[in-house]
């Protein structure tokens, strides 16, 4: 029961919300559409649902072309960011709605709704109204309502966006467990990279109406396809350089900070090519580098923000050519920061696999 879209184009006036988007959400998987606001992810989701129609391109659900079908015929479950529960119906009636409009027998409705109430752990609240529930409970009801008529696919539009941070974390873990239980093909929109990495089987990164990268969470984080993905998912320090040698899966780069050794990745760059390398702030190490280790750099601590489990450092790196120092970000786990260390000269290093070519 996969979702396949091909060549989708959608314009709102002069604004191109989707620019020839082709992507697949695999059957039984939980796929995240991740991107900044205005990247077209919600538009894509709404077109898949049939709530909006594309100017060009096709939408296929489970191998069937549904491009011109209305939302009623597509049998999708849609969960809205602001729940959109029916305010005048009880929780029971909300969940039963999809079955009632399909004129299912009374016993079947009763049985299915009870089953879903158990699934979302709100069995006791079946007689309440949406206004009497907390945000997290409402979103669980919205999810149950979308699942009631056994949709082919489940589409969620920023499902945790309207919740506070703590509830959001609980609920996304719950959604992941739920998905492991019911395995319905799901696609959810989020702008929160942490959420996408934690919950999804695969992540589709979007920007400006285009798809930048599709891959497993570790893949998009460890091997970002380009600078946008590297910068949007997690944080990155970028350095420009020229490839001087490639061997054994490593690439030697000539950079303004001296020579760096980077992971060459699956498609090694050509010698002489100009490349960018990304170094994650958490990959920077302040312990003593082993003798002969590559990628040892020097800098000065500009500022340190202490956050308990982690300290965020801002480092100023002097370049070989005379010019303004470059600022890098570094995270130090379990930091020992008691005194003001601003201005301190530090030496730090990172392993070659943490210097990622993008």
């Amino acid at each position: 029961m996969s979702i396949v879209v091909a060549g989708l184009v959608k314009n709102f006036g002069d604004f191109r919300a989707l620019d020839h988007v082709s992507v697949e959400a695999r059957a039984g998987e939980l796929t995240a559409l991740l991107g900044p606001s205005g990247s077209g992810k919600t538009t894509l989701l709404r077109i898949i649902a049939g709530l909006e129609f594309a100017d060009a391109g096709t939408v296929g659900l489970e191998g069937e072309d549904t491009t011109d079908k209305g939302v009623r015929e597509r049998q999708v479950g849609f969960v809205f960011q602001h729940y959109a529960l029916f305010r005048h119906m009880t929780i029971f009636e909300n969940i039963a709605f999809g079955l009632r409009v399909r004129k299912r027998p009374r016993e079947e409705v009763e049985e299915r709704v009870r089953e879903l109430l158990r699934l979302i752990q709100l069995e006791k609240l079946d007689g309440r109204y949406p206004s009497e529930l907390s945000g997290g409970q409402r979103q669980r009801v919205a999810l149950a309502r979308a699942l009631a008529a056994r949709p082919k696919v489940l589409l969620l539009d920023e499902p945790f966006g309207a919740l506070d941070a703590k509830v959001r974390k609980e609920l996304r873990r719950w959604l992941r467990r739920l998905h492991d239980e019911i395995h319905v093909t799901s696609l959810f929109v989020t702008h929160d990279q942490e959420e996408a990495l934690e919950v999804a089987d695969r992540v589709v990164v979007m920007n400006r109406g285009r798809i930048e990268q599709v891959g497993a969470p570790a893949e998009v984080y460890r091997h970002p396809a380009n600078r946008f993905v590297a910068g949007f998912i997690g944080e990155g320090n970028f350095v420009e350089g020229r490839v001087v040698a490639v061997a054994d899966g490593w690439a030697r780069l000539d950079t303004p900070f001296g020579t760096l050794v980077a992971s060459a990745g699956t498609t090694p760059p050509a010698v002489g090519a100009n490349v960018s390398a990304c170094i994650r702030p958490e990959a920077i190490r302040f312990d003593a580098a082993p003798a002969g280790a590559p990628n040892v750099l020097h800098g000065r601590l500009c500022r340190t923000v202490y956050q308990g489990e982690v300290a965020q450092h801002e480092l100023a790196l002097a370049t070989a050519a005379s010019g303004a120092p470059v600022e890098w970000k570094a995270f130090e786990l379990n930091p020992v920061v008691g005194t003001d260390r601003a201005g301190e000269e530090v030496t730090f290093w990172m392993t070659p696999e943490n210097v990622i070519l993008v």
Partner: protein
Amino acid sequence: MKPGEGSSVAVRPRAGAGWVVRWGLIGFTVAFMGVFILVPVVNIFWQAFSGGLGKYAQAFYVSPPLPGVEGAEADKLADLAENAAQNRAAIGMTLFVAAIVVPLNALFGIAAAWWTTKFKVRGQSLLLTLIDVPFSVSPVIAGLVFVLLFGAQGYLRGPLQDLGNSWGQTLFLGGLVRGLVYTGTHIIFNWPGVVLATCFVTFPFVARELIPVLQAQGSDEEQAAVSLGANGWQMFYRVTLVNIKWGLIYGVILCNARAMGEFGAVNVVSGNVRGANVTVPLRIQQLYEDFNLPGAFALATLLAALAVVTLILKAVLEKRVEKAT
């Protein structure tokens, strides 16, 4: 802030000037309402019942003199019976007009409110402005416009006749149009004119009430309903209509009160012919001109009672509408 939650604390007057302003304003308001609202309403009932319950009842029913009985007594009785019959006809006419106008305007109001809030279409602001026209035009002018359009020398009379002729052979509607124009049954100085004029004067009430309610609710629930497999009618009936229920009833009640009480526009189009097309407000004027004050006030009690009931329902419903939005 809810009323009384903190306002009394915030504006609590210090002794002295504050006290004077507070009670001065309250006194002025109460006196004003007393003179302009309470006294006239009480007066209506006072005048209507001043001759006793029997006299009051005579405005609505008097049994005519038995056949064969003659004389001054019998003539007077016949007059009273005729009077009462005309009063009853006026009540019937008012109910009849309201029964047509209120459902029509409820439908129109829902359609207009739906169209202007759920869709983004060009010309919306124009429609919103047009909906308000009846509020800004004097009802007498509205009545005159209808006379100009549909009257004996009206602009639309010729086209309507042509329409009747061309459709007359085949279509029921053609027959209806022809019937209205030819057979002496006209729109103006007849009940269709009264219905048209009343429709015009009352059409903003439901729409104006529903537009803010629909706007506040957005279209999320409708989208959810459709995504769950509801068809257009199920979506409207099970979701939208239930959500706007109280606003709709509220609008209908206001619309009804105005439809039953309308004087100016109806006065122009009805022709004010005795015994024909006369609604309660018109009949009250006729009685008043005949120096039949007890009769006029007796009928006026009906409109006053309608107003009181409307006010009570309005107060109850306003809370419900607030809750729903």
